[in-house]
């Protein structure tokens, strides 16, 4: 088996969830590396969209901004934020990929502030950007993040971006599109999905060498396993080679 670090594992696993012939709205960093890897392996016709207007690029290198000119390099369109956001609102975007400072059991995300008083935050963070828009309107939203107790929290300081809000039916009651919502969370320990009845996060596959106790120890809320829990397929040698030589040759992401 090839050796790999945890970031390489996360990216390779995340890439598998992006199917060929689908449309995904992508952020910079690790999600973008996953999309690039998918495009170079099993999903050559994956349409990547970037919120500042880039549509269907053949990425030559990872963008540093979701607006930079790489996001429509040899693409189909360089259009506007209006066009990309409206395409999501119409229901044509299958996936989005997000990060965030905190995530809770229902897949809600905080990227706004840390502290108990909104008016006097301990730490001010960037805010929603396009995250709330993406997770409101894409069919399936995915999160790629490191697994630790400070990130996987019971109670968040601020819900920037909607997951399943406070449980079954809450998205629809709030006015969000039916059947949309959190899909997968990919970390350095496991892949998680959501229980259909409770809308709570649950472990679907454990990465090689990881057990449920370790996942629970790094999660502040109670987390269960899905009825059919599996072991995550490790990255193939080919995935790793493409990731290291074509996707991130300067190790901007995988060297973190």
């Amino acid at each position, binding site marked *: 088996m090839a050796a790999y670090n945890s970031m390489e594992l996360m990216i390779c696993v995340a890439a598998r969830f992006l199917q060929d012939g689908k449309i995904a709205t992508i952020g910079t960093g690790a999600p973008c590396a996953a999309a690039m890897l998918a495009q170079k392996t099993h999903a050559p016709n994956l349409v990547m969209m970037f919120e500042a207007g880039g549509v269907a690029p053949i990425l030559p290198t990872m963008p540093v901004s979701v607006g930079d000119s790489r996001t429509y390099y040899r693409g189909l369109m360089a259009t*506007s934020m209006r066009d990309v956001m409206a395409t999501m609102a119409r229901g044509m975007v299958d996936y989005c990929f997000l990060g965030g400072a905190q995530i809770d059991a229902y897949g809600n995300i905080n990227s706004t502030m840390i502290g108990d008083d909104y008016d006097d935050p301990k730490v001010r963070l960037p805010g929603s950007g396009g995250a709330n828009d993406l997770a*409101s309107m894409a069919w399936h939203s995915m999160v790629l993040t490191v697994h630790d107790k400070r990130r996987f929290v019971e109670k968040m300081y601020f819900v920037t971006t909607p997951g399943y809000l406070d449980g079954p039916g809450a*998205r629809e009651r709030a006015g969000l599109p039916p059947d949309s919502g959190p899909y997968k969370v990919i970390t350095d320990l496991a892949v998680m999905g959501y229980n259909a009845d409770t809308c709570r996060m649950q472990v679907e596959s454990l990465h090689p060498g990881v057990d449920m106790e370790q996942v629970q120890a790094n999660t502040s809320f109670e987390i269960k396993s899905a009825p059919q829990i599996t072991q995550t397929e490790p990255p193939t040698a080919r995935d790793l080679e493409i990731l290291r030589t074509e996707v991130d040759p300067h190790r901007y992401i995988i060297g973190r």
Partner: protein
Amino acid sequence: MKELFEGQGPLFTDPDPDHAREHFRKKERGLVNKLMPVKQAVEQLIHDGDYLAVGGFGGVRIPTSVLHEIVRQGRKNLGFSGHTSTHDCQILAAGECFDRCDIAYIIGLEARGLSPNSRRYFESGKVKVCEWTNAGMYWRYQAAALGVPFIPGRSMLGTDTNAHSGAKTVECPYTGKPIVLFPALYPDVAVIHVHEADIYGNARIRGNIIADHTLARASKHVILTTERLISSDEIRREPASNCIPYFCVDAVCVVPYGAFPSNMPYLYFSDEDHLRLWLDTERDVQQLDEFVKKYIYGTNDFEEYLRLCGGLERMAQLERQELLIPEPGQAAEEAL
């Protein structure tokens, strides 16, 4: 329409289209030569207390020369639209130029990390804030550009972002479902960097337009900075290539490399080293003070700043980076 929910955030601008129409009724329609230096454009069109919106996307096609001039002239108490505002936010925070901000995305520089000084500024209590999202801010510009008081949208529903926004959530009269009404945002002044413009302000942008065609129509005043001046004959030869009409525009400033250190699509890439230098310097307040003295207060204009940043030689490197051309002696794949 039944109102279901009201965000607690402040509205910093008046969404009434009739009040905006009073302004637009009087706006100059004549073909007037609007060429002027950046210094003059800022003196005439940006006043203390104005609400400012900046084009581009933080690290892409921002009008850096005008942002520096705003700092240099010591503008204060501006309202600021934080619609993915990254290096632009960083510059204006360094000058403590704004005291209220509509936030979609601030402080961060995307994949580059967070700006320590922008964060300090927003944590200092000196800035009143209101939460939105990128699409939400776009719908606000769009409503203004359409001349209507709001646009309905499906962002922010069910979240604290909505609770701290200035939006109202209502029951849709057609579907009966909750929907967010995004109030029109008419900035007092927008500053937009473009690839080409004529002396009247007819302009072209290449690559992704982000929100700038809409922003130019939503704003009461518009300052354009342009990479280069082109003739009006050229503008008229290919009308479909033009995205901003002259009658939206109040000033045209010719500023080659005017988006530096951000990315100008098809021309030059962002200067990642210089942006890194900003971020590193900002960790220490004293250091930042000296840095801003050197690069902004200590320079008379943008040309001087460019010279401090490596001049034409550096610009040529960034041009090669944008076009994925390897540096002399560099293998082709390393240019990627």
